[in-house]
């Protein structure tokens, strides 16, 4: 087992998982505070048909093509949700739920079609559902690592702008800040992290990796800066732990293990978190 971890490829995969986890923790903080958890989950599920469609059209496995397809259908889903909310009486949560289901179902149909009708290397498209770190090759890992780094840098650059546009968008507009542009940048970050994360974490659970770390971090601090970094650390720890465990237990899907790790951190934070954590709260009320 330690042979496995000292393998150069595995080490790169671990670095990729740390970077990806950190980036999703950081971006997830903004998503959570903007109350867009649900919509990001829909976006993630909606990447699946994009991946499947690319394989059907081009008939070979190409990660860059998959990512382009994933981006297109994710944006399409987001747009559909906005359209439904704007032009019908359907409420936001129902609109999100139905778009998520339709796109995910379509993705499953495409994958089933592929497994029945295409010959040769099926290329493990099923891995996109729950993620499989073991299936990553060097170029995938490089893409994940560099992509995550870019997303982290963008989050840091626009930190102050995201803070004000999420907290008080009207005031930000009043100051003359480009609120629309900033919302687009944030959307880009979310799409970006979802798309580069699906190979490792899978479309079903990538949104959980976005939301669980910041939820945990919120129990430890009342400052956005600290929350964002802590959330990144929680994401990184979950990412690397999940990857190690799924690599050792051969064939275990990576996504569910990563999210389990994130959930353990969440449970711990819920109980012991210094801000509004369950136990500190009980203790402090007893001291009074």
């Amino acid at each position: 087992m330690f042979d496995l971890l000292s393998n150069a490829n595995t080490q790169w995969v671990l670095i990729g998982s740390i970077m990806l986890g950190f980036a999703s923790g950081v971006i997830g903080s903004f998503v959570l505070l903007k109350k867009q958890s649900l919509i990001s989950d829909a976006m993630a599920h909606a990447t699946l048909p994009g991946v499947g469609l690319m394989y059907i059209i081009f008939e070979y496995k190409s990660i860059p093509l998959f990512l382009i397809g994933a981006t297109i259908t994710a944006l399409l889903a987001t747009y559909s949700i906005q359209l439904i909310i704007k032009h019908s009486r359907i409420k936001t949560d129902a609109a999100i739920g139905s778009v998520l289901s339709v796109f995910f179902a379509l993705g499953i149909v495409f994958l089933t079609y592929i497994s029945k009708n295409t010959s040769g290397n099926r290329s493990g498209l099923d891995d996109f559902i729950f993620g499989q770190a073991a299936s990553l090759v060097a170029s995938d890992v490089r893409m994940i690592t560099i992509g995550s780094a870019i997303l982290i840098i963008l989050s840091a650059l626009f930190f102050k702008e995201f803070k004000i546009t999420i907290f008080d968008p009207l005031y930000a507009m009043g100051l003359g800040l480009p609120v629309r542009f900033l919302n687009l940048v944030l959307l880009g970050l979310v799409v970006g992290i979802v798309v580069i994360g699906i190979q490792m974490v899978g479309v079903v659970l990538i949104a959980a990796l976005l939301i669980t770390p910041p939820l945990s971090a919120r129990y430890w601090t009342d400052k956005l800066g600290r929350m964002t970094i802590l959330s990144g650390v929680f994401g990184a720890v979950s990412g690397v732990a999940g990857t190690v465990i799924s690599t050792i237990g051969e064939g275990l899907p990576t996504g569910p293990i990563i999210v389990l790790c994130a959930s353990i951190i969440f449970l711990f934070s819920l109980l012991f978190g210094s801000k509004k954590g369950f136990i500190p709260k009980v203790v402090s009320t007893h001291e009074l």
Partner: protein
Amino acid sequence: MNALSVQNLTVTYDKTPVLQKVGFEIPKGSLTGIIGPNGAGKSTLIKAILQLIPRISGDIQVYGKPYHRQRRLIGYVPQRSEVDWDFPTSALDVVLMGRYGHIGLIKRPGKKEIQIAKEALRKVGMEEYQDRQISQLSGGQQQRVFLARALAQDAQIYFMDEPFVGVDAATEKAIIQLMQEWKEEGKTVLVVHHDLQTVEDYFDHVLLLNKSPVGCGPTQKVFTMENLKQTYGGSLKFLGENSVVLQERV
């Protein structure tokens, strides 16, 4: 000189007109109360002037130049209910937001900006609370933080939407004092206000609004029984003692 001039402003929500052909002018260095019944379009008027919502028509000039070129000069104190108070941020951090327009994109607030924000908090009597998470402030304290943010912004024209709602007498006095100081510095202040009894004490100008302006000008001239009746229509009978006070004066 007019600090603000609004012409032919029309705003609709889903095709129902909320503001119709609104036009008025506000002189520099005045303290204006914007007065009208619930749903008269007061908040909408402010948002439309600040271009936070789309408008059908309307020409807005600030110091004789189009609004979008004068954005820096405008400060806005929104209604308290409009932000998420559970947001992980401190009082000082919120006040610092008033400086974001000065700091510019991407750059971080420096020592100077933090100093300005602290000074603004001190001015509204909130320096002890600078590190408090904002949900742990009382309603009046939250309003003071908004005020400090506007102060830190150092604008020339301030729009305040119902700053007195839910604050105690001391906070109301602090807000009035600040408005007076702004006026003395030659700044212009417009305040959405509901308490008709205090209008004459607080404001030297009034804008009476009910979908379109009923009157705009010096309080003495415009704040009359006649105009109020027209502004409030049937609901004036609910004014009770206010109307008695007014009738005596007229």
